[in-house]
């Protein structure tokens, strides 16, 4: 058995980015079916245009329209494409120097095998059917057979003349996320209805959920400790604000509970009591879900509720605030 528990997780965010006058000019051109570069102080035409001149560091303002045909100056085969690349089947990435430009642009090249591509070959832009003002408005390059490009490249899917001022770039990454061995023991314990912590061998503090190292001594926490499923509210907040993904209707209480036998508070919900009655020192106990619903998750504990015992003495939790 693996030491650790793991699960797939996807982290995704659509970045909305503003573009300045230089990239905006480039992206506006792409939307309108033209490739725009800029002349730099060393006399070269660079695509995409750099925002500032690499030598003088002045803002770029000398824009030049270049052709949508060009020459491959380097290429590589992509035998196993990764998610979101221009093709989900093998293809080539290429550096292409467009006619009228002095440096190459990186983009995909649609060919079916490495035998179909070579340095020096002539290629042309294949425009995306719908263009929005993004680098992906160039769908890819394709071998140039010498015939005229299809009419319509210059047509635009949005109103011409309006400058592109922003771009949305989605990012989505997939991970196999693993808990540490100590955290894994904690989740396996929950699947058996037990709450497990770890004790630092130097300072003897008990951490729950367990940490892989004691933050005081910087040594591995080695000794497993089983804790009670009841404890004391040390501090809390009443959640009144609705937010995306919220599962409980506000107001409700999120609290730190110092489990009996632990030296660090444990975050969970306090329910079965009006929010305004929750207080520091309140004694609470875990409410477990029905056993058949248990898994290796903290959600086996539905929430904590008051035990009805007298409040704990302040001195029992004053060092854990």
């Amino acid at each position, binding site marked *: 058995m693996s030491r650790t528990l793991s699960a797939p997780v996807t982290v995704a965010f659509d970045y909305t980015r503003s573009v300045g006058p230089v990239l905006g000019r480039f992206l506006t051109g792409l939307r309108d079916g033209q490739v725009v570069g800029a002349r730099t102080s060393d006399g070269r035409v660079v695509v995409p245009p750099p925002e500032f001149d690499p030598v003088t560091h002045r803002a770029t303002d000398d824009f030049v329209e270049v052709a949508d045909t060009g020459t491959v100056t380097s290429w590589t085969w992509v035998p196993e494409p990764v998610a979101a690349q221009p093709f989900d089947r093998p293809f080539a990435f290429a550096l292409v120097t467009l006619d009228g430009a002095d440096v190459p642009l990186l983009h995909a090249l649609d060919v079916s095998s490495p035998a179909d591509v070579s340095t020096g070959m002539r290629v042309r832009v294949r425009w995306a059917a719908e263009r929005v003002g993004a680098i992906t408005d160039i769908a890819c390059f394709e071998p140039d057979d010498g015939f005229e490009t299809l009419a319509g490249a210059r047509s635009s899917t949005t109103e011409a003349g309006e400058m592109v001022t922003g771009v949305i770039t989605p990012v989505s990454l997939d991970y196999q996320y693993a808990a540490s061995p*100590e955290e894994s023991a904690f989740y396996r314990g929950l699947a058996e209805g037990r709450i497990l912590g770890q004790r630092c061998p130097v300072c003897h503090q008990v951490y729950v959920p367990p940490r892989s190292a004691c*933050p005081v001594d910087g040594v591995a926490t080695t000794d497993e400790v089983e804790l009670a499923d009841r404890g004391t509210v040390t501090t809390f907040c009443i959640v009144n604000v609705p937010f995306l993904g919220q599962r409980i209707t506000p107001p409700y209480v999120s609290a730190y509970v110092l489990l009996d036998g632990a030296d660090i508070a444990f975050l969970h919900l306090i329910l079965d009591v009006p929010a305004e009655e929750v207080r520091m020192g309140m004694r609470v106990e875990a409410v477990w879900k029905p056993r058949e619903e248990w898994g290796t998750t903290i959600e086996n504990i539905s929430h904590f509720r008051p035990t009805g015992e007298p409040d704990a003495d302040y001195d029992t939790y004053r060092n854990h605030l």
Partner: protein
Amino acid sequence: MRDVAVVGFAQRQMEEFDGSPTCVELLVPLFAECYEQTGFTRKDIGFWCSGSSDYLAGRSFSFVSAVDAIGVIPPVNESHVEMDAAWALYEAWVKIQTGEVDTALVYGFGKSSAGVLRRTLALQLDPYTLTPLWPDTVSLAGLQARAGIDAGAWDERAMAEVVNRSLTDAEKNEYAVRRGGSSVEELLARPMYADPLRKHDCAPVTDGASALVLAAGDRARDAVDRPAWITGIAHNVDPLHLGVRDLTRSPSAAAAAVAAGTAGVEVAELHAPFSHQELVLARELGLESDVRVNPSGGALAGNPMFTGGLNRIGEAARRVWSGDHGRVLGHATSGPALQQNLVCTMSAEQGAN
């Protein structure tokens, strides 16, 4: 300038680390090894600096969790770079130069296997015109390799020679993830992967962590018999876009080498995650033909993200401690196709800078 030396180094490299992406459990024993090597305790460390990336970990502020391994209560003097830990070493070296501290522990960590590494690294590109195409690391290196082959700067045989030497040397490296040389002919007979790259031209996906100790003056002499005194350290950067630079060259590596001073170097540990990149670096760093390159096997034998560069400096320093060599070089790279380069030269002779 204060005389600062590398006095401790510990590492782990593995194909797949069965643990959390914060690598806390991996760092604890590495720090223990560093304390044992130097005789320092954690209270002797004046400054802590790490290199790692949240994109690799798939969680925010992953370096904050990792500091548990230090023992951070009460709070310590700590910093982090979203770069290879070789750049954390640079920050620590500067910190010691200020006179504020005399010692530092530098560490790096990364669980590359948690995601798709070559894809994740597309996020270090220009987000407007490059990342939306998701050009993966291997593809970018392939474009660079082809540019050099077409220009006559190197050929497939020269690349295979780098691989064969690296994997043969890696047989003596207990931390190597890939090892075992064969022959240049046999390597050249293997199939292409990302034409013009074969799989052995690309560093293996590697999980790992490492830790390195710096100390100034007498503190360094207390820690180890033969400190690896840093005689020069510099880092430079080239433009991000591949189109605007000559991919067969690396001006930033050359500039860093000039600033750090490479004369008299006997051993060079070069951070070259692709075989042809070692050929670029050897030229740009101006290494003499008798310089021993990557006796550890280099990045082709194991390239843990965010510590692969620090490992090169640690490996080079070990050769000074052992007495085998008097003057060595460690190099680190970051970014696509050798965009950023750091050179650190070390010597058994104090005051050689």
